[in-house]
């Protein structure tokens, strides 16, 4: 113990030291002797487990100078019992794209955080940040200074652009239809101002996945979802298909029958793909990675608007651009991003996500504003109700 405080007993939490899955309680315990904050966190959590209630208070804006995000202020409502967690703010540190690290970089982060905070992290937060869990208001500036000196910066929070994130893409995946990590880095740098200074009606998230498997759940968890895909034919190595078959894969049952548009045909000797009906779902490729691959004319589908349910119900992102080529410097995409932010930033209501905004003003109107032509790929099906806001009409001559 750095401070001379009594180690809290945690009989309930100790139950969670048992079992094969790695224990978060152990993580706290490794620091309990070293840090009063870890000890008091354990104490308060044990108290939560006993009483079945949380004891954190939100509110009160804390942060670093000039930034409007990156820190979540949090205070214990049991500060008298657990004084070391009286302040317990988290810091969101912008992760490197694809969450790649060297041990050296990680150790640098550890050193800063051990010195100036609880020593406890989330690797990573749900949005993708490195989350430093628990520190005092006074430590914020020093931490920020030390982080930036080492080349790290804060991530987003509040009504900002949130930290963009992406799958590991071309770094380690054969299916990536564009350079997710390159784009993620580029957008993060391009939009530093939007990331650090609130200028939107509410949060805005960007996630990038290299192919329709969507390994970062971008279609469900980001206002802007950029998902790799291709326009031409699936690449196929017929002999590798045969190898899968002779190795025992039931191609008919496992592959063909699961194709959503039934555009595969397998006669035991040859796999045929009616590519004009392939909807690029990835399934056949997923099952036979050595035989099939996305086509060569690659790019991405851009979708807008996903979010959690508060308050109109959850949304999935919906198609904005069916296909876009994505090569550095990603000019067309950045241009589109600027254009979609504009009407939302101007006309969005407080705490209205862009998906909600689009539903409120009408996707057709939104497209007009943004200068994108409506195409049927944007809808599951055309409208079923007759409430058309006609805006053209004839006038008597």
């Amino acid at each position: 113990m750095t401070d001379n405080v009594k180690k809290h007993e945690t009989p309930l939490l100790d139950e969670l030291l048992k079992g094969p899955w790695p224990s978060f309680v152990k993580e706290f315990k490794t620091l309990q002797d070293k840090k009063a904050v870890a000890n008091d966190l354990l104490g308060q959590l044990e108290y939560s487990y006993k009483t079945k209630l949380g004891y954190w208070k939100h509110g009160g804006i804390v942060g670093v100078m000039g930034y409007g995000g990156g820190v979540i202020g949090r205070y214990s409502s049991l500060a008298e019992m657990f004084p070391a967690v009286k302040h317990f703010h988290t810091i969101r540190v912008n992760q490197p794209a694809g969450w790649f690290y060297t041990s050296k970089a990680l150790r640098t982060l550890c050193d800063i955080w051990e010195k100036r905070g609880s020593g406890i992290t989330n690797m990573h937060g749900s949005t993708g940040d490195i989350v430093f869990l628990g520190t005092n208001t006074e430590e914020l500036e020093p931490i920020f200074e030390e982080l930036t000196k080492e080349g790290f910066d804060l991530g987003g929070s509040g009504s900002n652009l949130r930290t963009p994130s992406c799958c590991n893409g071309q770094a380690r995946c054969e299916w990536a239809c564009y350079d997710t990590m390159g784009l993620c880095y580029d957008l993060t740098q391009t939009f530093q101002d939007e990331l650090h200074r609130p200028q939107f009606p509410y949060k805005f998230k960007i996630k990038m996945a290299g192919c329709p498997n969507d390994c970062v759940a971008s279609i469900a968890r980001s206002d802007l979802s950029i998902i790799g895909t291709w326009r031409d034919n699936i690449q196929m190595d017929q002999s590798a298909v045969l190898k899968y078959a002779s190795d025992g894969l039931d191609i008919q049952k496992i592959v063909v029958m699961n194709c959503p548009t039934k555009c595969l045909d397998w006669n035991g000797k040859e796999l045929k793909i009616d590519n004009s009906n392939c909807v690029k779902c990835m399934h056949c490729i997923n099952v036979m990675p050595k035989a099939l691959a996305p086509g060569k004319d690659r790019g991405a589908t851009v979708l807008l608007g996903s979010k959690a349910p508060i308050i109109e119900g959850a949304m999935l992102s919906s198609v904005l651009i069916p296909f876009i080529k994505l090569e550095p410097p990603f000019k067309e995409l950045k241009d589109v991003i600027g254009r979609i932010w504009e009407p939302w930033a101007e006309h969005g209501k407080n705490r209205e996500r862009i998906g909600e905004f689009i539903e409120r003003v009408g996707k057709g109107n939104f497209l007009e504003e943004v200068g994108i032509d409506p195409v049927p790929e944007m809808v599951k099906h055309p409208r079923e109700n007759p409430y058309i806001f006609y805006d053209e009409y004839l006038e008597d001559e």
Partner: protein
Amino acid sequence: MSEKQARITDIGPPHHDKFLPPVIKENYGKWKYHENPRPGVLVHVSHSGAKIWSVRCATPRILSVISIRKICELADKYADGYLRFTSRNNFELLITKEANVDPAIKEAIAIGYPVGGTGNSLSNIVHTQGWVHCHSAATDASGVVKAVMDELFVHFQEQKLPAKLRIALACCLNMCGAVHCSDISILGVHRRPPKADDANLGKICEVPNLIASCPTAAIRPTTKNGVATVEIEEEKCMFCANCYTVCPALPINDALNDGVSIWVGGKVSNARSTPSFSKLAIPWLPNTPPRWPEVVSAVKNIVDVWAKDARPYERVGEWVSRIGWPRFFKKTGIEFTKHHIDDFKHCGGTFATSTQMRHNG
């Protein structure tokens, strides 16, 4: 009191038993199967072996007593006076003797009632009043129906379509014809906000009720020339005419801008796919009486493309489900506009929330 008793009320319709041919009475609930020997003719066969032939004849739904009497003569001559109407406004002669079938057909056709509409064909168009009787109509009903059926007549007579083809028409958004669930629907639409009859509105209508009737809150109270009336916020009006239903002093009809929209892909049966709503294909076509050539050719085009492309038993909506909406628009050459994208209350559910797409289709 005695007068009241003399008055007959609440007797309901006559019992159908009185109107059933004997062979139906005897085989009621005992039918085993049916055949469709030729377009317009069904023969139902009972477990008892008994048979009844039905000859289905088109009507314009509007029938004068003169015509009904002619139809009665036909029924008397070939069907022992027994006949019925169908849920799509055709009539069916209920014939017990096979030998009467062909002569009945011949005579029905001769006196102007074409035979067909069975099996995988186009049957009669379910429709509504239009300018013949309704105050609310944005187009005529019977005229459009006549023009469309003249053009598609062969599909009524033959059974060469991929599946049943159900067309419906309603002359306004009230949709008294089942256009919300038809393979192809023709719907009269307004495109201009109602114009308040300021002088009379306050007298005829209750302003608060009227304001409440507008689903988009486009109606605001105002005073003009000292009398209470309302004004319509044009941007908010979606031309539903609900206000006009509530208040006749808010006419919405507009000769130049009323017109017809076309919808596709709805169905009612539970066969194969579940019942589904019609979807917008063409937001507006002009009202061009007497024969609405734009509407006729738009409908024909959709029918032609579908008939050529669909698999057997694939209704219009099932066909589009298989090929996808982008291809529907491509194949039919219909333009996709911002109006096709739903912007009403529950629109979110209609947005494409997946990357699944035919990029090289």
